[in-house]
């Protein structure tokens, strides 16, 4: 490697094969893509990404349903639906021949529907009125994962949509929803359920003796622990649900297989921050371990700069350069306080005094046109009093612009480092970068804009009017 450390560093960066670019339009256009699952840690824009992808796919001619888990009210409103519910609603204002439907998972409703659909009337009402069921279905953490998978299975079975975009629950451990079927399975295969189902069967065959001792101790322990009435509630619940458990498992297994099938694409969503990308790396590994088809990484809120050839260091030096004359001018110990506006109200900085003293747009504050800038600068150093107030405020502003730029460049390099680390670990993962938006999404146009950003190869060169 080069002896120059700086060059060596550069070399390493370029030595990394740049991340493959994830091209989302072919994925959305491919009729064989039937399910897109967006997963990622909380607060990275997962739900918004799902909605934007759904809209884009619909506007490219597909019939799409977006299943959101817990959308912010704003997002529901951005799709023109004030409150999303458990039934897919058609979103108005979608351009083109496609259709977009959106819904929000209602855990309790979904659970109730399953009970109603799979148990006869008496049994269903016994379950629905069971206190243990009521609190289980009302949405303790965990129920959400089962119900999301159930709903996905239902939507797919209805076959009304040719593309389902799913947002995943903000799970405590990243991929809880993948574990749901397995957990249910291990519970159903376990002995506990037999204990709960058949406390009366205890006693009898000699070969079962050890287990029987265990079981009577068990029911005793459970009774002591839960209190007799709760144990009865749980037993009634399990007994009533018994006939349905098999169905639960069959469907959960089927949904799990559906996720592994070729028509499914997983998108891991992240932001270029350390924690989010660490979580993303975990998702990528976990999906691979489960044989789930990963389409790529959507990296939201990536910053760019149209002036990225000007480094943070040079920008700061230049800003100081502009501020220097006034520091000299101000004399005594106040120099260091230059940046706090309330400290120099008495100085000649018009911006700090009042906005009214700003130059009107029509009156360019430019001084004598003829003299080159460099000479002006020297002159100013010699006699600061010749500098007009307007010019001072422009200089102050320019210094501010440069400081802002320095901050942006630092952010850029931090994001680049985080991204490089991810790419080094997972060079196989294709990445779609989405340029950061200054504000939130409020309407379909906002979602469409995000869709455009998602599909654009690179955020570094945005259209000037995109405001990036």
């Amino acid at each position, binding site marked *: 490697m080069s002896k120059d450390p700086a060059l060596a560093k550069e070399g390493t960066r370029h030595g990394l094969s740049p991340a493959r670019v994830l091209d989302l339009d072919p994925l959305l256009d491919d009729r064989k893509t039937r399910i897109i699952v967006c997963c990622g840690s*909380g607060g990275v824009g997962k739900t918004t990404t799902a909605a934007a992808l759904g809209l884009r796919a619909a506007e490219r001619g597909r019939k799409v349903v977006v299943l959101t888990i817990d959308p912010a009210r704003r997002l529901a409103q951005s799709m023109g639906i004030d409150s999303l519910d458990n039934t897919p609603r058609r979103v108005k204002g979608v351009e083109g021949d496609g259709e977009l439907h959106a819904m929000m998972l209602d855990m309790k409703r979904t659970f109730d529907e399953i009970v109603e659909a799979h148990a006869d009337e008496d049994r269903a009402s016994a379950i629905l009125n069971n206190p243990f069921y009521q609190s*289980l279905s009302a949405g303790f953490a*965990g129920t959400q994962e089962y119900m999301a998978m159930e709903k996905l299975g239902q939507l797919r079975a209805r076959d009304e949509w040719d593309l389902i975009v799913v947002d995943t629950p903000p799970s*405590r451990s990243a991929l809880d929803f993948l574990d749901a079927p397995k957990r249910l399975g291990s519970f159903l295969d*376990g002995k506990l359920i037999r204990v709960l189902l058949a406390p009366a069967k205890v006693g009898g065959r000699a070969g079962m003796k050890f287990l029987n001792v265990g079981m009577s101790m068990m029911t005793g322990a459970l009774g002591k*622990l839960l209190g007799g009435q709760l144990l009865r509630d749980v037993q009634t619940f399990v007994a009533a649900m018994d006939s349905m458990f098999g169905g639960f498992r069959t469907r959960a297994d089927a949904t799990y297989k559906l996720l592994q099938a070729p028509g499914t694409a997983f998108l891991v969503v992240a932001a270029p921050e350390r924690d989010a990308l660490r979580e993303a790396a975990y998702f990528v590994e976990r999906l691979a371990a489960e044989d789930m088809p990963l389409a790529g990484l959507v990296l939201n809120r990536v910053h760019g700069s149209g002036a990225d050839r*000007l480094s943070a260091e040079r920008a700061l030096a230049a800003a100081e350069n502009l501020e220097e004359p006034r520091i000299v001018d101000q004399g005594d110990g106040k120099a260091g306080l230059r940046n706090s506006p309330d400290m120099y109200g008495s100085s000649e900085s018009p911006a700090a005094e009042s906005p009214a003293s700003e130059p009107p747009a029509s009156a360019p504050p430019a001084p004598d046109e003829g003299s080159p800038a460099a000479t002006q600068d020297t002159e100013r150093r010699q006699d600061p009093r010749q500098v007009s107030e307007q010019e001072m405020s422009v200089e102050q502003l320019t210094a501010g612009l440069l400081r802002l730029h320095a901050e942006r460049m630092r952010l850029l390099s931090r994001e680049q480092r985080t991204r490089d680390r991810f790419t080094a670990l997972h060079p196989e993962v294709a990445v779609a970068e989405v340029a950061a938006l200054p504000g939130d999404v409020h309407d379909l146009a906002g979602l469409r804009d995000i869709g455009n950003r998602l599909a654009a190869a690179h955020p570094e060169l945005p259209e000037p009017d995109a405001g990036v």
Partner: protein
Amino acid sequence: MSRLQVVSGKGGTGKTTVAAALALALATEGKRTLLVEVEGRQGIAQLFETETLPYEERKIAVAPGGGEVYALAIDPELALLDYLQMFYKLGSAGRALKKLGAIDFATTVAPGLRDVLLTGKACEAVRRKDKSGRFAYDYVIMDAPPTGRITRFLNVNDEVAGLAKIGPIHNQAQAVMRVLKSPETSVHLVTLLEEMPVQETADGIAELRSARLPVGRIIVNMVRPEVLDAAELELVRTVPRTAVAQSLSAAGLGGARRGGHAERLVDPLLAQAGEYGERYALEHEQRAVLGELGLPLHELPLLAEGMDLAGLYELAAELREQRMS
């Protein structure tokens, strides 16, 4: 100052960081604090740059002035066995339960029970006393589930007490609720100056209040420094491009003439300032919304170099200065 400090917030707002900084701040001057993680993400270990935390209270940092920060990552399964042992003396029956898959059931399939264990364990640490009768920890700080789930999480024992109307579980659930609904507890919400987290904070506070859980403070995290003020932002809109170009040129960034280096910087720099302005306005709006919630507000700065251990101490010092601790 409440002895149990619960820190929640929307995902991505940095609640783990704030909880850790608070644990450090409260430990300053010889106090002992326990930082509890309930979501099994090992975020605390990563922040303090230590190895994976076991289910064991372990000293992870020393605070200025000799205080100590302990950390505990609660593993629901071990917590259940712990709990059975502690409250019901069910040692061998506990093992039988495990054999039967009851522990799996309790901690994963019936997820409400998991929350019971997590809150129960935290409250146990709050109440624990050493041999001399002093509290084992001066403060317990919980890195809690996100805002959307916090009320249900903290209230789970109310639900349990309703389900199990008698027996040890009922009593235990009530004991936990007594701690959580008393002034001994304080629930803080972490937010960013962005629309969605602020909205979620407002909703979360309303929910907590209607469940009669004690709401503490709002901590605005990752606040960016003010680079341009309102007057300068106004000027951004009106300033002639040539004047900026000349200024840049004067600063030594190349020619101000059309196509010169300085001139070509003007548009991108003004565009960045425009974006900044948009954000600035949005932040002011959101600050006003937060102000209307009637809770003490604290602000923590965005650390330019990203979050690391040094940054954590910086934030802790900031919290102390703002008298959050």
